[in-house]
């Protein structure tokens, strides 16, 4: 084994540094003023405020800059410094590009502004520094190889949204993709250009589990999972050439089952992001095949879902997993399959004959929710073209690597960085004086680099703080406890970026816009991480411990994730509990009654819709009423301290100023006297007793209700609401003959007709009534979103597409005639229209007849009524007009209908002919 003699190295460095000092004065004056000082977020945030006095700031920096890894602290100071371990480098070669290592080792702060890694080689002469750096680069890169893989555009887009929402922005600068410049934020780390350092697989792996490399959790574990880590990594690497990941072929032809793609005539090929019919403009008579590769995160049983109209097939590793062939309406098939972690080839085949075209491919990971299979698609290696512009491939020199390994030990890299080679840890051979023996004006703390020592471009404030902490060590005789310990941990781990505790921290104005919610109506409570004021009294210590160690998502509406800090804050839960213990007095707990079933039943009654209605705003496990959906009631007992729950329920505002949580006991008096005699304490305790059963408790009343089916018995009924396919101003009519329609009073058009059941009103008549409700019955026919009348000056004049109001249509309402059947009234120009529908027929066989009556003084010419429109309209043997495969329109014998093709569609037009200012048109729908 080759070794660099330590002595000769030191001698040479001495000489070199002397020379260096002489030579570099004019050339590269390296000094703290030129470089960004190491960025420690807790210091940036609180420095100069009473929340971080100078000595405390110094102690923070001693830990964050890892000073005590070389310079031992002793006594109380050691206990007050929480050392941030440097990244573990055992497989750094898999993660970090050699080119980046070269630049970074040569000058860390110039390569990565704000780095907390000191410059260890600053005073070496150029040539020698190069040699040392090169040896270290070869050594570090001997631990693995960076695998290049092109990021996929789709993932990068998804990653952009995730980067902007999951909480990355609490600590990192925004990265706008529109080229706009954003000023660097205070207490925020710029990520620069991560593609210099990482390739996709390495960065994604790091993001998925940062603690594996950086066990100190200053970058915490965000519980992203593999797919989201890949997405965020793809976004961070979006300056690289992007790939799509899927290749597809289009095969035109009228198929009734999937063609043999190996024999088929391919009309077009391309690259796609997702398995979607949007890759082609064809709407019917075509087939598609997608090919790509998926990368699965774990071994296990995966469930695949294939939804299509018409036929489709899913193949994994060239084996058919789901066969969903044949002409059919939109339908889904699923299949489970055991697969190993890693890469598998995937293919999806699809064809469309006519009518609707849909394709969706999803996968459900063991124990997780469904997601698009495309999320797991990976691109291949970087393409040849991008390799050409990439730097020449790194060639490992083993001799240099061996030399580097010795330097890693002798230069003290190993003092901070844990590293194992073949399972053997590398020890540092560097010895340094303990802190108490340092002079505190030279070495690491000097204004310019000094020989033989590491060097940080510290700011003056940082330098002063460190000096104060070391000098003040003697006066700080005790370990931090209670609130001081809590405050230090919240500072160190930058918890204050998201959480306020007392007057300190919380989301500041510059970051406010980055905290997003799924439910804006919840206000800041639904958007901002909760304050930690009094949290030690509020939460059970076991829960606090779990949340800190594992991260958490009890507030799913807050898009920012509570990250996982592993074992890094071991004393936090106990310290915060001790610090806050006295904030709530002992509540009158009814412990002896908590198991009493009658008492619990009273609690259940209070929680339910006709009690205090807690469930109107709170989720119950996986059940919820549409609306606010605040945190689940089934987690309360697991999380909360009962002593805190009691007074909080009676007066929430006292604990959380501005909360929207109402009280049912204003001034301590029960508003519901009928339960438990209106005894406030008993009521609160009964709720607690009920909540103690968590998910095991039976759900409270009012949470699940069935359909509210509206039925027309002897007369027509009307349902006016948001109806899917008929818009927000829909008027649905159900007829006793089991025919139904929906009129769109915005578009002034017949929007839908269907048979059998009319409407389910439960969506709109329960809770707040969120969303559009589709028809309840069968055979729903959708009509085109165009106005019913148009003046066509020539045979080829296209049907107008402007919205009805802009064409002068006015809705006038309706009148109810016999059997409460409505006649819709509207007008345009000087024409008044009465549009009447009625079921005709007998013996259970009914058709819907539409009679449109127009009245006009001007009796305009060339006015047409659109009786039907579709892909194809065929005249049937009995004189009807069949529209696609959906329905048939029948017209009275003497109707002068015109069938024409316009803009790729078939239209059945009826000229409007006025007699004495009046015209009547009749059509009957048979479907």
């Amino acid at each position, binding site marked *: 084994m080759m070794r660099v003699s330590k002595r000769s190295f030191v001698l040479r460095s001495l000489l070199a540094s002397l020379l260096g000092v002489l030579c570099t004065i004019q050339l590269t004056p390296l000094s703290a003023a030129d470089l960004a000082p190491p960025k420690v977020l807790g210091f940036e945030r609180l420095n100069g405020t009473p929340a971080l006095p100078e000595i405390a700031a110094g102690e923070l920096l001693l830990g964050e800059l890892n000073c005590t890894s070389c310079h031992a602290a002793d006594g109380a100071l050691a206990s007050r410094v929480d050392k941030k371990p440097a990244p573990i480098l055992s497989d750094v070669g898999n993660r970090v590009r050699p080119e980046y290592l070269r630049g970074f080792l040569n000058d860390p702060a110039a390569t990565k502004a704000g780095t907390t890694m000191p410059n260890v080689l600053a005073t070496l002469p150029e040539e020698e520094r190069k040699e040392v750096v090169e040896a270290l680069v070869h050594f570090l890169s001997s631990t693995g190889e960076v695998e290049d893989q092109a990021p996929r555009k789709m993932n990068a887009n998804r990653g952009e949204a995730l980067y902007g929402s999951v909480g990355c922005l609490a600590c990192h600068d925004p990265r706008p993709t529109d080229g706009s410049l954003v000023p660097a934020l205070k207490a925020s780390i710029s990520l620069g250009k991560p593609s210099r350092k990482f390739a996709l697989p390495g960065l994604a792996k790091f993001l998925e589990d940062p603690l594996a490399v950086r066990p100190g959790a200053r970058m915490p574990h965000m519980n992203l999972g593999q797919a989201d880590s890949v997405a965020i990594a793809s976004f961070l690497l979006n300056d690289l050439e992007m790939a799509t990941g899927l290749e597809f072929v289009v095969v035109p032809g009228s198929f009734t089952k999937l063609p043999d793609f190996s024999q088929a005539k391919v009309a077009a090929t391309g690259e796609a992001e997702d398995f979607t019919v949007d890759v082609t403009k064809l709407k019917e008579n075509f087939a598609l095949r997608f090919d790509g590769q998926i990368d699965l995160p774990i071994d296990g049983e995966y469930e695949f879902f294939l939804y299509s109209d018409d036929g489709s097939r899913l193949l994994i590793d060239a084996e058919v997993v789901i066969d969903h062939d044949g002409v059919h309406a939109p339908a889904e098939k699923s299949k489970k399959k055991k697969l190993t972690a890693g890469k598998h080839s995937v293919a999806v085949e699809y064809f469309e004959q006519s009518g609707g075209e849909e394709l969706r491919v999803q996968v459900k990971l063991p124990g997780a929710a469904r997601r698009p299979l495309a999320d797991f698609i990976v691109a291949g290696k970087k393409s040849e073209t991008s390799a050409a512009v990439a730097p020449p491939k790194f060639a490992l020199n083993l001799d240099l690597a061996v030399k580097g390994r010795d330097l890693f030990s002798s230069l003290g890299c190993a003092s901070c960085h844990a590293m194992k080679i073949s399972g053997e840890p590398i020890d540092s051979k560097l010895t340094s004086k303990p802190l108490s023996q340092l002079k505190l004006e030279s070495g690491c703390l000097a204004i310019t680099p000094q020989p033989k020592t590491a060097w940080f471009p510290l700011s003056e404030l940082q330098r002063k703080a460190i000096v104060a902490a070391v000098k003040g060590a003697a006066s700080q005789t005790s370990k931090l406890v209670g609130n001081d310990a809590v405050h230090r941990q919240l500072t160190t781990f930058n918890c204050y970026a998201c959480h306020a505790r007392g007057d300190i921290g919380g989301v500041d*104005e510059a970051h*406010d816009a980055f905290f997003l919610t799924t439910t*804006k*109506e*919840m*206000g*800041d*409570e639904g*958007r901002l991480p909760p304050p930690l004021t009094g949290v030690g009294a509020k939460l059970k210590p076991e829960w606090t411990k779990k949340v800190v160690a594992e991260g958490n998502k009890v507030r799913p509406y807050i898009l920012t994730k509570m990250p996982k800090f592993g074992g890094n804050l071991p004393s936090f839960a106990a310290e915060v509990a001790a610090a806050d213990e006295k904030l709530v007095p002992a509540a009158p707990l009814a412990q002896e009654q908590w198991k009493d079933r009658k008492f619990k039943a009273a609690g259940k009654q209070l929680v339910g*819709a*006709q*009690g*205090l*209605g*807690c469930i*109107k*705003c709170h989720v119950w496990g996986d059940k919820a*009423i*549409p*609306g606010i959906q605040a945190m689940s009631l089934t987690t309360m007992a697991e999380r909360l301290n009962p002593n805190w729950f009691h007074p909080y329920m009676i007066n929430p*505002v006292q604990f959380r*100023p*501005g909360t*929207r949580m*109402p*009280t*049912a006991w*204003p001034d301590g008096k029960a*508003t*519901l006297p009928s339960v438990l005699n209106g005894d406030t304490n008993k009521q609160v305790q009964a709720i607690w007793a009920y909540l103690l059963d968590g998910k095991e408790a039976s759900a409270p009343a009012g949470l699940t209700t069935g359909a509210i089916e509206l039925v027309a018995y002897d007369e027509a*009924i*009307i*349902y*006016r*609401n*948001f109806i899917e396919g008929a*818009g*927000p*101003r829909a*008027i649905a009519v159900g007829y006793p003959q089991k025919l139904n329609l929906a009129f769109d*009073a915005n578009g002034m058009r017949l929007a839908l007709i269907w048979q059998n059941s009319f409407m389910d*009103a439960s969506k709109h*008549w*329960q*809770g*707040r*009534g*969120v*969303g*559009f409700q589709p028809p309840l019955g069968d055979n729903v026919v959708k009509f085109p979103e165009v106005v019913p009348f148009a003046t066509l000056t020539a045979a080829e004049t296209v049907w107008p597409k402007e919205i009805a109001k802009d064409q002068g249509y*006015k*809705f*006038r*309402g*309706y*009148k*109810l005639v016999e059997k*409460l059947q409505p006649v819709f*009234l509207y007008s345009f120009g000087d024409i008044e229209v009465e549009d009447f529908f009625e079921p005709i027929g007998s013996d259970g066989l009914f058709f819907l007849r539409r009679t449109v009556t127009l009245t006009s003084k001007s009796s305009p010419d060339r006015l047409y009524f659109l009786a039907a429109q579709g892909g194809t309209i065929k005249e049937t043997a009995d004189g009807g007009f069949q529209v696609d495969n959906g329905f048939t329109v029948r017209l009275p014998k003497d109707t002068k209908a015109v069938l024409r093709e316009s803009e790729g569609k078939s239209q059945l037009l009826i000229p409007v002919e006025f007699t004495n200012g009046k015209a009547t048109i009749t059509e009957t729908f048979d479907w």
Partner: protein
Amino acid sequence: MNSLPSIGRCTLVFLCSLFMASMLSAQDPQKQPDPNKEETYYKLESFPIPEHISLEAGSLEYLPNKTLAISTRRGDIFVLADPFIKDPADATFKLWASGLHEVLGLAYKDGWLYATQRCELTRIKDSNNDGKADVFETVSDGWEINGDYHEYAFGSKFDKDGNVWVVLCLTGSFSSAVKYRGWCLRINEDGKVLPTCSGIRSPGGIGMNCAGDMFYTDNQGPWNGACALKWLKPGSFQGHPGGNKWYKETGEAIGPAPKEPKSGSRMMVEAKLIPELEPPCCYFPYPEMGQSAAGVVCDTTNGKFGPFAGQLFVTDQSHSTVMRVCLEKVDGHYQGACIPFRQGFTSGALSILFANDDTMFVGGTNRGWGSRGSKPDSLDRVVWTGELPFEIHEMHAKKDGFEVIFTKPVDPKAAGDVASYKLTTYQHIYQSAYGSPKVDHTTPTITKVEVAADGKSARLFVEQLQEGHVHELHLDGVRSAVGLKLLHPVAYYTLNYIPQ
């Protein structure tokens, strides 16, 4: 026993009521009504809601034939033929119209019932007199809806010019996705739409004062630090800029869009910079007074409902209460105080109406938003017992303090003592984020109290009144001439303008 023979059942009911009556009469001589209870002065009587109907009462209207029309969130209109029937349990609800879209406004005129639905203002008539409506004419659909549940439309009664005023909730809390969300529109008999005010967020009701000026309630949320009563002064901006993009569509009907308010500021700071910005006339402190301000009605009973003629009554859906608001005009702007009035409504109190010149009707719902009243739907009536409560009647701002007027003469000693009062102030952050904490707390000094010779009012001299602040006045030490405590010893005065 599945069913009692009808005679038997009647007998049973009769016997029960006799028994109850005898119990009551037996108790009456001993029991003096408790002077500290609201029910001593205002009786709250609930109409049992038949099981087969949902009476989530969005709006109420009193019809010339002395019946009460009740519109519901499910889109029905019921008619209560006998709203003043002695026992509300004997009242019958008759379905008059159905199939409408969440009706939150009813107004009667010339044989037509005008209903404000989510989607339009419709006038409805029973043309063949069969007891069911059959003509539904669209008066105006001059606003858009997007399908968001928040897009409520509350309609007023007719103003003196024959307009119905409609206040339109934003799309959600923050934005105006389609035209005129976040606006107040006036709609005349011909259906002509007159854009009237922008700046609305999430109304809970609309109503006029006795002078015919229109007010609405807006709820805590973005740009609304707390729920408040606001004056829909034509041309004004009510504070939430979400809908201001529609100014360009108004054809300058009310001038150009006002300047954008600065988030994080204070209401009166911005009101000085933005002339169109009309500050809320009265905040309803959150959560002391309520959490969902809703219906507004003026006491037009000329004293038949007690001492509060001319004042406004406002419901709170969340607290199931009715509050009282007395307003005055200072510098051309309405401002004033809110005072608790009556609690204990059966469901979330929403719609409110005076009928027959003496009875208050309150309709309720708690669907989607919980309330202290635990029933899903309700119709309650409030009747004055004729007993005069000892209450704060009015509160007026003065350049150096307040004047508090009482419903009964006070004990001059207690009412003249500075220590009988406690005055604190605060305001809200005027901001784009949801709601606001109470900020800028102060404690002005009451230096002196002068009680009027007739004992009916007290003049408080105050140092350091705070412009723009809610002045929270507690009068725990004040006693009536016969030693009674005030029924509600607190008033919250929103002092936007200090009279000079």
